[in-house]
């Protein structure tokens, strides 16, 4: 019912979302959120190539993602639930993360997706190192992310 993947490779959203309802005709809706790498080198930075490197804590990452997913499954009536998070070097436009949930009820699917991505942003041990083509810097945690997580408690 809960699938968690932490991987360097890209993923196939169509196949992943299809798998969330495959063979289960009680599923009425599948909600998803895909996070993408934004371009940090602005349009005025000429040919500067920005990138992002995701570091994580192998072992703890999987445990935390599974715990977040289990919490979502306790809060909403979900049939299946998926979290995929990538690590390593990524370029603008690359997929970073996919959260998705399948439910008989659309509210449960959509709300649990919002919950998963909010919690993941404040609990899962990943760190982003941004490179705007000129300098590297570690992305700072946002207070707005803490606030977003608080609304679920």
């Amino acid at each position, binding site marked *: 019912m809960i699938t968690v993947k932490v991987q360097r490779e890209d993923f196939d959203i169509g196949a992943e979302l299809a798998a969330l309802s495959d063979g289960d005709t009680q599923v009425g809706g599948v909600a998803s959120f895909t996070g993408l790498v934004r371009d940090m080198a602005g349009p005025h930075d000429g040919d500067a190539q920005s990138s992002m490197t995701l570091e994580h804590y192998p072992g703890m990452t999987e445990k935390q993602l599974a715990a977040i997913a289990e919490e979502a499954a306790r809060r909403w009536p979900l049939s299946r639930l998926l979290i995929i998070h990538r690590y390593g070097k990524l370029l603008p436009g690359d997929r970073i993360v996919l959260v998705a949930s399948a439910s008989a009820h659309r509210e449960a699917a959509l709300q649990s997706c919002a919950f998963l991505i909010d919690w993941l*942003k404040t609990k899962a041990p990943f760190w982003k190192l941004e490179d705007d083509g000129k300098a590297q810097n570690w992305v700072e*945690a946002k207070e707005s992310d803490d606030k977003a997580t608080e609304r679920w408690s």
Partner: protein
Amino acid sequence: MKLLYFAWIRAKIGVGEEQVALPPNIANVGDLLDWLASRGDNYAGALKERKVVKVAVNQEYVGTDHPVKSGDEVALFPPVTGG
């Protein structure tokens, strides 16, 4: 004890992982952080802003009063920024 460092804490300390023998007077996470900060400028610099240092013992988030013992895996890292 196995110590793991991530992100800019790792970068400031200069290693990602090390094995240390705990001095006998280290009972909890707070003691451990104090002792680590005394081990050199790189540790002191990395752990200067104590309130932004997150700690996991055996892969679970803990507070500074959580006990530590020699067989533990202890990780120090800044607030997470995934997703």
